[in-house]
């Protein structure tokens, strides 16, 4: 029995069917698992590898290359704050410090209520509006310590 649900397996198979080389669905398989579980555990990575027909090492190589694939459990909302050059110049450091102190966590950590995980990320393509961050699938720009508090209040 696979540790993956039937729905997950079916979605992965669907992705595989879209490519000439089914192994090209490796990334999508990881996305499917993460969409269902919030993150990708060792067991589900191995199970997904089996469905796609690659070795766990091949799957792991892809999983660990992309920083949007989470190989550890994350909170309900993942905050990814851009540390690339434009945001750095426009105030990244104060935003970062504010996030860390107000949430009481460092990068890679999750608040004890499981509400937020804080991660650094490279350029979000939102450079004109730096400093920028992403919370879940939403993008936020022109951040200041004050606006951050208001923005985060919406994520429960």
């Amino acid at each position, binding site marked *: 029995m696979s540790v993956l649900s039937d729905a997950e397996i079916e979605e992965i198979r669907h992705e595989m069917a879209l490519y000439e080389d089914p192994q090209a669905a490796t990334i999508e398989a990881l996305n499917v698992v993460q969409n269902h579980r919030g993150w990708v555990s060792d067991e589900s990575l*191995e199970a997904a590898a089996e469905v796609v027909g690659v*070795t766990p*090492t091949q799957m*792991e*190589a892809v999983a*660990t290359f992309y920083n949007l694939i989470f190989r550890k459990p994350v909170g309900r909302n993942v905050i990814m704050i851009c540390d690339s050059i434009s945001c750095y110049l426009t105030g990244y450091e104060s935003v970062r410090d504010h996030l860390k102190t107000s949430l009481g966590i460092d990068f890679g950590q999750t608040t004890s209520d499981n509400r937020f995980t804080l991660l650094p990320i490279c350029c979000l393509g939102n450079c004109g509006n730096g400093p920028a961050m992403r919370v879940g699938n939403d993008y936020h720009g022109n951040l200041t310590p004050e606006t951050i508090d208001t923005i985060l209040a919406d994520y429960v």
Partner: protein
Amino acid sequence: MAKITIDGRQYDVDETDNVLKVALSKGFDLPYFCWHPELHSVGACRQCAVKQYKNGDDTQGQIAMACMTPASDGSLFSISDNEAAEMRAQVVEWLMINHPHDCAVCEEGGECHLQDMTLMTGHTRRRYIGPKRTHRNQNLGPFISHEMNRCIACYRCVRYYRDYADGNDLRALGSHMNVYFGRDTDGPFENEFSGNLVEVCPTGVFTDKTLGAHYIRKWDLQNAPSICTHCSLGCNTSPGSRRGELRRIQNRYHGEINHYFLCDRGRFGAGFTTRDDRPRQPLSRSANNVLEPVAKDDAIAAVRQAIASGRAIGIGSPRASIEDNYALRHLLGAEHFVNGLSAAESRASHAVRDLLADNANHIATLREVESCDAVFVIGEDVTQTAPRLALSLRQSAKTKHFELARAANIPKWHARAVHEAGQHHYNPIFEATPAATRLQDITAESTHGDAQTIAQLAFAVASRLDSQAPAPSNVDDELLKRAEIIAETLRNATKPLIVVGTGLGDSDVVTAAGNVMKALTTANDAAQIFPTLLEANSLGMSLFDAPSIDHALTQVESGDVDTLVVNQNDIFERAPTHRVDAVLKNLKNLVVLDHSLTETTARADHVLPAGSFAEADGTLINNEGRAQRFFQVFISEGPIQETWRWCADLARALGRPVRWNGMDDLITAIVDELPQFAGIQDAAPSQSFRKAGMRFPRGTHRQAARTALYAEIDVRERRPEVDADSALSFSMEGYHGSELPSELLAYAYAPGWESNQQAITRFQDEVGGHLKMGDPGVRIMTSKDNGGYTKLPQTNSDGGGWRVAPRYHIFDSESQSARAPAIAERVNGRQITVNRASADKLGVADGDSLSITIDGDALSLPVAIDDSLGDQVIGIPIGSQGVSGVHAASQVEA
């Protein structure tokens, strides 16, 4: 041809090469990391920076990566340019930022490409004082140690393992500042060629764990040019020893055979020479029936007595040299000598001998295999029986990538672009084997069946290629369709290749391959044959023209013989156990000369400790009919000596004339008496050969502590031993120059280049080409055309019975490597295999134990379902955890 200028001098070069390869070939010391002659260029490390100028007026120039720059006509470069040199020094400094600088405790030290490059670029002072990233290392099993902190992220390992060897359990994990080269979890690498990582990685990330267990620096090893004894391909190796103990096997470059790579059986299989249970003293069976050490003279006297008083027959061995076998034959007489092969293997090996003679001008070398564009593998699971061939076949499939790249104007060295151009397009490989093999990921089509079906298919292919070739009747349509496709593909290929082996112990399979070759070569002179046999000297044994071991057993059974003298052979591997048992019980005397405590050794009345490849000189004939010499690595303590020396001692004791004292006279005697071996004298320079009056060193110039090596035994320095058998010296003294004959090159070291894969460049005609002084060995097969096609064999159609598929395993099926502890650790339980229908018929499920009789012996093993097997076929594991001497015609009852 193109002319390019480097540092003011003009060179004639091949314009399809890149500037790095050209510069190295011309003798420049140009640093690099990510490039490798077999893996080509990706331009990742930025270490090979040079200055390129637009024209003679351009004084500025611009930095270019030599490995990514074509050597096009008229181009101008400088290596010595200051800016380029400075960049190279910076690159190393930056690569070293995270490196732990732990050379003193690193097993790569002294043969490390990273050390070499650091020195070559002049980065000799560390300025960085910040923290370094560290990693957790993995336990990669018994072969390879892992120390990720030393990684410089050059990606050579994955480019070798993934792109070249097609392995899927080593990858670059992580990204940017945090890249990790390893597996998803701890565990041994699954690929059969993983050991090459030890040499491919330019740093100490991957090192040889078997060397680490009794570690010694490269410069302190005493080496010899040697030949791997674990299959028939004859890969060249450089075993290293210290204080009379073998420490490791390293690759020894041969431009036509193994070039840069060995298989894991060959690299890690030498541990059989250092086992505790190995006989190191002469032994005789005492009154209370145990083998006890005796003095050498007493042993000789006892064996002399046994031979003189009995009717003796000598049993030769395909794992021993021509010299050892000849000496035994000489001792007992030609008519009292058998080749030591099982009856079936002997027939198949003789068929291969004839096949080679018929096709003497079409025998591929292993290197040539890589450039063939269509392959038909007949019967053999080559990954398990001739492992290195599988790696070459993988390259032949990928030759398609180079062809497609050429059509798209992509240079052959542009590795990523070639890969993209090639994608999933491969040259066709057809396999006909009893079951699915490890090559199935690259085969165009596989046919699975018993030996008879495989032979039928091959005969059908021959008849489709040439209507003159006899066509098998009563072949089913499905098989005929396949034959049609295979024939069509081979016909259309530029350089088709036929691979066939003796693993099934079936000579019809071999003669069928002969018909395919005949049909192919009628139309295409470029067609090639590459046969494989089971052991290092199987082909050599077939050249003796002696009967198989069956003859010896029959002679004992009929009472004509009462004494067996066995040379490095385990009779239990060659015939059914109950039969061998009975024969041994009826013997008056069993004399065994061996270096391994086999079942036969354990039953002996007298044991003479024979030298293994490490303690002896000898000649082996590989699968292509190439005679190659291996040289003694060290002189062992105690009475271990070559079988041929034991035989000479015994002959003298028996009052028979012996014409030889050393290898030279012995080889002369062999060639005089057995003209089929003419040529073996040219396999290496004679023992009297000197250069500038000097011998050729086994030790490196930097061998340390010679004067104190045995100080705890005796403070006086030992005199170096004099080698009576070869032109090598047992010391660091001797000729180190550029005209060192390839056959005598014991190790590769060159000024500035200490790592094996890089230092060898200085001994090649061009990087990755042939050895400057010629690739070792001589082909001794003389051409003999047997004329027409071979007639079809009788087919037997006893529909009901079970048929045997011998199934080999790289780590279990070759008797000597299987005794090496590191190798043994990789064999976890062999099984009897059947398909589902057969399992149902036998009333067993996966994992159940199944008891069968095979050639009258009982065998009980767990069952594994393998649906690639045909109906009514039982896969029998060959080796220590299964049985030996089983072949396609073995009788099995379930």
